[in-house]
């Protein structure tokens, strides 16, 4: 009898192969921790860089292989949801994982940039008290800190799980796995360390609140649906006899958590402070990879778990989309710091992505996927360029210092102009194509929202152009910053970012095809 009972215990059927990208990144992260312990200091940087790039690259290759398999051998229910349905490794998930991995490689290359500043952009020892003699000594020395690489890999592994989590508990774990390393990384800027630590604390406190909201929403939804699986919650909307209040309040709280991570207004207030405080490569990583992952999760929650009540959440998404676009566009106009401008720009872009999210169609999934790609690469390159313009205090991010920069470095000014035009959505850049698909997807269901989005992008265009005006038509200031020549790693990252921005502007079809082919969300 006992034996029979043992035999009937269900072991979850695990399609381990579908999780290879996540395992590879996690494995590389653990390897990085060991490297940190056993490899001598002199060798550590190169070994860590190699492990990180190899881990991300290996994961990228496995995503590619999975993607091919998924597209050629569809099972009756689509692709295999791994782990008994708690993870759904489907077209959307793999596409976003691939995007995150490529962006993470670029971020790693930016972190590894050692030519423009002594050491690296990351503080040599985060635990040393700011302003103490050791700190001053270290800030002038060439010593680098390499824990950042495993931290980055841990964060990436969370980001890889986030968009494929088909179960709210798994999604919460992923949220924490991606957030905790980010809180740490945020505090590790080499220059202006106090600001960086403040940013870290701020991000941590608000992030913890957001996580708590998410968890509370999760609990309410469990009370409603008796399950935390997204498909289960979807079914419960038809069958559950519990009060709808649980459902709506639960969803609202869940959304707070997710919209916070995606820096959507009115949950955006941390964004400018954090982006301007943290080290620039980390800001680039946060602005691009975190956003891709969060929108992936948002997409899955709303489209898989709550597609049945879309009429109820649509007005909310309308409202936050409008708020986000307006806040991003209007407040961006008044900023004087380049990183804050980029922060507000990322808030506005989050609004644009939400515009597509409103229409629950296959087109809108593809539009969101394509938009995060265009946005991610452009933002990554823009932050990367910020690292190059420096004065005695480090990066010269105040806009007044950028005036007349085209005379000093025509190349940098041209590249930045291309990126800014892309953010403004001018044709022949990727930003335009992204906006176009978003607006096309949303036109039928949310025409007025599209018009508002167009007007917001006109306002936002003003501040992008203002920077172009500064760089080209203004006189350089007395204390003009210098333009550093990037080393190989940052050069590669910047080249990729700019190339993608231009190529997707003139020849976007392959990526669009890929996105629309992959725009399949699998529930079970």
């Amino acid at each position, binding site marked *: 009898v006992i034996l029979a009972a043992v035999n009937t215990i269900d072991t979850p059927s695990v399609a381990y192969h579908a999780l290879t990208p996540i395992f590879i990144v996690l494995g590389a992260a653990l390897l990085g921790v060991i490297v940190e312990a056993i490899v001598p200091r002199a060798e550590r940087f190169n070994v860590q860089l190699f492990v990180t790039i190899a881990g991300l690259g290996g994961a990228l290759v496995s995503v590619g292989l999975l993607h091919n398999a998924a597209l050629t051998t569809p099972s009756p229910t689509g692709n295999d949801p791994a782990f008994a349905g708690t993870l759904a490794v489907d077209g959307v998930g793999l596409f976003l994982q691939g995007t995150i991995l490529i962006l993470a490689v670029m971020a790693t290359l930016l972190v590894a940039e050692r030519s423009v500043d002594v050491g690296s952009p990351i503080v040599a020892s985060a635990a040393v008290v700011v302003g103490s003699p050791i700190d001053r000594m270290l800030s002038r020395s060439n010593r680098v800190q390499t824990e950042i690489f495993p931290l980055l890999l841990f964060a990436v592994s969370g980001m890889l799980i986030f968009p494929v989590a088909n179960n709210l508990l798994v999604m919460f774990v992923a949220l924490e796995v991606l957030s905790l390393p980010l809180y740490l990384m945020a505090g590790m800027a080499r220059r202006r360390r106090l600001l960086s630590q403040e940013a870290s604390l701020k991000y941590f406190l608000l992030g913890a609140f957001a996580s708590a909201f998410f968890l509370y929403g999760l609990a309410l939804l469990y009370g409603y649906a008796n399950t935390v699986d997204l498909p289960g919650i979807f079914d419960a909307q038809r069958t559950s006899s519990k009060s709808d209040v649980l459902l709506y309040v639960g969803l609202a709280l869940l959304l707070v958590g997710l919209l916070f991570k995606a820096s959507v207004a009115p949950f955006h207030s941390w964004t400018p402070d954090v982006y301007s405080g943290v080290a620039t490569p980390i800001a680039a990583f946060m602005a691009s990879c975190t956003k891709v992952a969060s929108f992936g999760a948002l997409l899955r929650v709303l489209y898989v778990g709550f597609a049945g009540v879309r009429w109820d959440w649509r007005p909310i998404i309308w409202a936050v989309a409008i708020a986000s676009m307006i806040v991003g566009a209007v407040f961006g106009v008044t900023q004087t710091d380049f990183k804050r401008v980029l922060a507000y720009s990322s808030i506005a872009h989050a609004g644009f992505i939400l515009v597509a999210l409103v229409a629950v169609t296959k087109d809108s999934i593809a539009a969101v996927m394509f938009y995060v790609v265009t946005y991610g690469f452009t933002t990554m390159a823009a932050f990367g360029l910020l690292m190059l313009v420096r004065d005695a205090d480090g990066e010269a991010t105040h806009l007044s210092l950028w005036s007349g920069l085209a005379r000093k470095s025509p190349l940098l000014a041209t590249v930045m102009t291309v990126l800014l*035009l892309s953010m*403004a959505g*001018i*044709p*022949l850049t990727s930003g*335009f194509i992204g906006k*176009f698909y978003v*607006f*096309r997807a949303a*036109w*039928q269901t949310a*025409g007025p929202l*599209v*018009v508002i989005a*167009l*007007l917001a*992008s*006109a306002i936002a*265009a*003003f501040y992008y*152009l*203002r920077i172009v*005006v500064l760089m*080209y*038509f*203004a006189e350089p200031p007395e204390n003009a910053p210098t333009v550093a020549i990037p080393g190989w790693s940052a050069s590669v990252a910047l080249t990729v970012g700019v190339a993608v921005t231009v190529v997707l502007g003139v020849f976007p079809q392959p990526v669009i095809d890929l996105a629309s082919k992959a725009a399949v969300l699998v529930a079970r």
Partner: protein
Amino acid sequence: VKNFFGLVLLLEFFMIGVFTATDVFLFYVFFEAMLVPMYFIIGSFGGPRRQYAAMKFFLYSLVGGLLMLASVIGLYVTTGSRTFAITDLIGKVPDNATQKWLFLGFFIAFAIKAPLVPFHTWLPDAGAEAPAGGAALLVGVLDKVGTFGFLRYCLPLFPAASRYFAPTILILSVIGILYAAFVAIGQRDMKRLVAYTSVAHFGFIGIGIFAFTTQGGSGAVLYMVNHGLSTGALFIIVGLLIARGKSRNVADYGGAARVTPILAGLFLLTGLSALALPGMSTFVSEFLVLVGTFTRHEGLAVLATSGIILAAIYVLYLYKRAFQGTVNEKVTKFRDLNAREVFAVAPLLALIIFLGVYPRPLLDIINPAVTATLQYVHQTDPVPKLAPVAGGQK
């Protein structure tokens, strides 16, 4: 300087693209991309307030462009034809409120570009601050995209909406003709003056198009060509004068005709073409536009005709202030035009006079196209009325 030529060539590329595109999406891409080189031409090589002018130009055009983008997407979605090719879209737009909204998206973009009053305020700034060559391209060619767009996109794609909005647009155009002419008379800044004359001329093109008659339509198309020639030449000549006097204020000149007779003569010729003197090509087009309008909207045509008188005032008044009267002290040191400068203007003037005497070759090209366009709007020329009958319109 090498940047300037690079930008001009890039601009040429986009402009040729915008006029030849037969795909609404491609048209939009060129329409917006065109702004970038022009923005840098104004911003890098322009006058003292170039930053402001460049920004204003860009933002106005961008807002218009984005509204058009909304309509382009709307066109794609509502017709359901899964294509942007204009030949496949014609006749597919449902005849209802949606069509009016889509029309407005295109119309505002083109009205900003053209520019029609009240969307014109960027042009005096951009025209005045742009370098002479840039201004000639801006007003002479780039702005024609607006009026061209009315004919190529608004009328065939949205016939019902075009008919619905035509009276409003006609009235706006006539207001533009009269208002801009009055403002031009009062201008001291010569380049702003030329820019305002353009606003008035775009009013003529507007009434020509929206009168829905073959004469009006052909006149409007011919007007676009002639206005390009005439205003282009005017901007260049005024630019040459300003290059000598280093001031755009007309009060700094006077009596220049005695010092620089060639410059003065060429100015007078182009000025006369701007006021549509018979014998100049502009006369042909203005006459056609007015005749075409008169057969359908008598009152408006009469009002518009008075614009010609105002044009005579602003051109001749400018000529009097700058080139006649007592010779200003600064003017005495002016050097007359050299061969290169004459060569820049002479071909334009030669064309203006040639087309003024013999416009047939152009009209032969234009007429069939205009007739075809008007068929899309389901409008035929009104039969001339023998006796004044009320309500004789179709």
